[in-house]
């Protein structure tokens, strides 16, 4: 059992990295990686929200939705849970850690429209993972996303000094860069034979 948990964790962090292999969470990815400090802040927030959001969703799915055959409500319920939780986190952070709150600013609210936040509970539901496996997926996705953010931020900070053609400045060149990193991440694909 532990083997499967570890496999899921490594797979979601490296092999099936949510950004580079599954193309999820790109809006935030490009928005936050302009500066290193916002990227690091976002990584922490995202992993925290992911873990708790995935856990809550799993409980509601396993103990309420499956017994009553309400699987078709997945999308509605999961997004509702995440939105409510982010709202609560928003209010609490404003009071308890205002410095971090102001630093993150809009990004906290933006997590709600992050594809990965919804994708992980959906995958958990479809594959009928147990609690540990769901947590492994959530943690792995958080780690993979953080890795992606930090790599991209460190490159983009140096990008300012490069001589990029005018039409490609900003988003297009970032996309091409992401493609190159994705190519590098392909190297992980033989790591675990599932």
């Amino acid at each position, binding site marked *: 059992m532990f083997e499967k948990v570890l496999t899921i964790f490594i797979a979601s962090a490296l092999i099936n990295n949510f950004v580079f292999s599954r193309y999820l969470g790109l809006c935030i990815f490009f928005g936050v990686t302009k500066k290193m400090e916002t990227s690091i802040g976002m990584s922490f927030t995202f992993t925290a929200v992911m873990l708790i959001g995935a856990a809550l969703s799993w409980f509601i799915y396993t103990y309420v939705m499956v017994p009553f055959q309400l699987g078709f409500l997945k999308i509605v319920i999961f*997004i509702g849970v995440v939105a409510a939780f982010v709202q609560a986190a928003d209010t609490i952070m404003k009071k308890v850690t205002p410095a971090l709150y102001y630093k993150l600013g809009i990004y906290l609210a933006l997590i709600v429209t992050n594809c990965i936040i919804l994708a992980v509970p959906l995958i958990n539901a479809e594959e009928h993972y147990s609690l540990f496996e769901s947590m492994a997926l959530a943690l792995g996705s958080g780690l993979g996303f953080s890795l992606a953010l930090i790599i991209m931020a460190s490159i983009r900070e140096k990008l300012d000094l490069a001589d990029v053609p005018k*039409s490609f400045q900003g988003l297009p060149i970032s996309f091409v860069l992401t493609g190159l990193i994705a190519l590098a991440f392909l190297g992980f694909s033989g790591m675990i034979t599932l």
Partner: protein
Amino acid sequence: MTTDKVNYGTIIKNGIFGENPVFRLALSLCPAVAVTSGVKNGFLMGVAVLFVMTMVNGTVSLLRNFISPKVRIPSYMFIIATWVTVTDLVMAAYARDVYKQMGLYIMLIVAFAIVLSRAEMFASKNKLIPSMVDGAAMGMGFLLALVLLGIFRESLGKGSLWGYKFVDSKPLLIMIMPTGGFFAMGLMMGWLNWVDRKFFGGTGGGGGGH
């Protein structure tokens, strides 16, 4: 009367060219890269988004006077989630083979920034028909962008279009992999910016992006 007609024209043009969600606004990029490994997939995704956006805009516009401003975002998310569930189930039933490949991405339409922002910016302030037209126009822009990307990727990556092979030699396999998706997106954006600058005097590119 005439002003209404002019309005629709502007709305439609805006949705497809001026504020094309993928290439201009750079919103909802996740699916653009994910599902365009084939033209067919991209087309169906575009159709799904078109449907969702039209319906969501319509619903939000109908209910705009009944939703209290404090709870509007959760309400919009709820409406969007409902319509996406409908789309998801319909697609699962009638386009089974395509759905198998991209089922997850259809469900993720609910997280698109473009749907929520259009509902918030346009549908909550306008009447039913203009809102639906706007949703349809944005969806159309999205569909066109996806098809364009799909054509680029599939013709290079598989040597075919919509499943019909037209090139016999070995294709550029990288294009249908994630890397190719990013490359295609970046190159297309860059080229379109260049075209915009050269022929339409636009200001595409030049820093920014979100």
